[in-house]
């Protein structure tokens, strides 16, 4: 299997060199250690890493966020490392499921599962994203989703947004397409 390519964005060079050693020992390829700079985006774009790891205390977080917008066609998972004091609550947000970020301190042993979790979550998020795009462009699927929303609103007394969120969440939990969940729901509703 090809080595995963990781880029580090951290102004604290001592820490990032420790992390680089830990990552290399875990079998990753560290393509660059960057401090924040004006051409950070261009550098990252050129390096095309599989994962970007950034210090949560870095102002470059906003720059990286913008990268996801500029290079929409090739977004990267971003893993954030935060102070121990913040990690618990941020982890709670991450486990809520929407974010592509995973956080922890810099203990080398915990690095690998974090990165793998970040990539997995990111891919799930991306898949959901592209599926939502596809669903939008497909009128047929869109109608299904609209009808399923209607079923939920009527039967469970939900608002439109709540109904949509429930469908989305169910699709994500089951790892299947939004339209499939909608179709199943409509069939089930016809039987009841």
């Amino acid at each position: 299997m090809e080595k995963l390519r990781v880029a580090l964005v951290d102004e604290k060079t001592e820490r990032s060199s420790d992390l680089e050693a830990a990552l290399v020992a875990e079998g990753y390829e560290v393509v660059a250690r960057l401090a924040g700079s004006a051409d950070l985006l261009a550098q990252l774009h050129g390096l095309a890493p599989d994962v970007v790891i950034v210090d949560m205390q870095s102002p470059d977080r906003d720059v990286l966020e913008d990268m996801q917008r500029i290079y929409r066609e090739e977004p990267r998972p971003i893993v954030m490392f935060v102070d121990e004091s913040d990690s618990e609550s941020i982890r709670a947000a991450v486990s809520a499921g929407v974010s592509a970020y995973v956080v922890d301190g810099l203990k080398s042993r915990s690095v690998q599962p974090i990165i793998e979790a970040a990539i997995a979550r990111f891919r799930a998020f991306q898949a959901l994203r592209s599926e939502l795009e596809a669903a939008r462009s497909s009128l047929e699927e869109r109608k299904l989703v609209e009808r399923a929303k209607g079923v939920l609103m009527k039967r469970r007394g939900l608002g439109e947004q709540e109904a949509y969120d429930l469908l989305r969440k169910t699709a994500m939990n089951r790892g299947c397409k939004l339209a499939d969940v909608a179709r199943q729901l409509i069939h089930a509703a016809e039987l009841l």
Partner: protein
Amino acid sequence: MSAHDRPELRLGFTPLTDCAPLVIAHELGFFAREGLRVELSPEPSWSNVRDKLAAGALDAAHALAPLPLALTLGVGPLQEPTITALSLGLGGNGICVSLALRRALDGVDAAGAASPAGAGRALAKLVALRRSRGAAPLRFGTVFPVSMHTYALCHWLEVSGVDPLRDVELRVVPPPRMAGELEQGELDGFCVGEPWSSVAVRRGIGVILLTGNDVWSHAPEKVLAVPLAWAERNPAVHRALLRALLLAGRWCDDYGNRPELARRLARWIDAPEEALLPALLDALHPSLHAFHRFAASFPWRSHAAWMLAQMIARGQLEKPIDVRRASAAVYRSDLYREAAREVGLSCPLADEKLEGAHASAWQLPSDGAPIHMPPDRFLDGSVFDPADVVRYLSARPFCAARFPLDELAAAQRS
């Protein structure tokens, strides 16, 4: 519960002049007098502020005015219902360009470049000229995709005849690095909160072409963002926080206090006191920072609606929403009134107003004496009616909405 037992509140802030009410409430005891124990947590990025609010790592934060809307609607990677019941102030931004860009603007239209109203006209000529020569698009810095900086910059470009998403390149740059990137030629201009335009001017590498007030006079800027779940669990603490910040904002607004304010702020912001003074003492624009006057602390739902219209026009919102309903859910003027009355401040009677409709000073009806209000014009003289967002957007020269406007019209039920 006595102050002693009460848990410490964590308040996030970003080092900018307009975090003043938080710093003053902390240093001069406005929090303590409300029985609050507060820890101010400096945040290096708006992404951090957003993530920590969503995660509950901050109880409340000094935040970009559109941030609670974006977080509630899921514009960006996270979604968490978030509200604001307090504006932390109006205005404070500047659009600053490099000396080279200023010279180039003078070259195409010297009269235009010299005035805030004409600078955009000069820019449009320059953009057209550069395109005909095959030159790279000009690059402008802003602080976050979802910010008044982005929206003011885009509004200025748009009304000048420049498509903000195609004719120029917009880049997010951390405010303390704006001046440096202007100097290195990485940016041709930027829109940023004070003191960072003044820092560029003081270093002799940039010129303030126009202020945020020239684009939209006394525009919303920062708010106190609070997760809805926290506000619902802690209504009394939230009200105490609002009372402390309302009184601190009134203190900051007093020009007699502004030199002391600059001195105190300089310790929290990595910028010299002298760089803070021009904006605070009106050397850049009259009343560039309003913390209390002009109903500056009131969370106008019409401000929220304008920002939602910008999110739609810039393609940030993925699907149609009921703009007025979203504005009312996030901009909680009802909670503002509860707190303001407890400290004897009079409150506007309405939750919305026509934005941009006043060419001269006017009187705002309140539950006490009328509130003196300034002119509130947009650069292009447009008027924004929060009840008719669709018509407003139909009239914009460049609208990059990701859905047809009739779908938006169908979603307006309030």
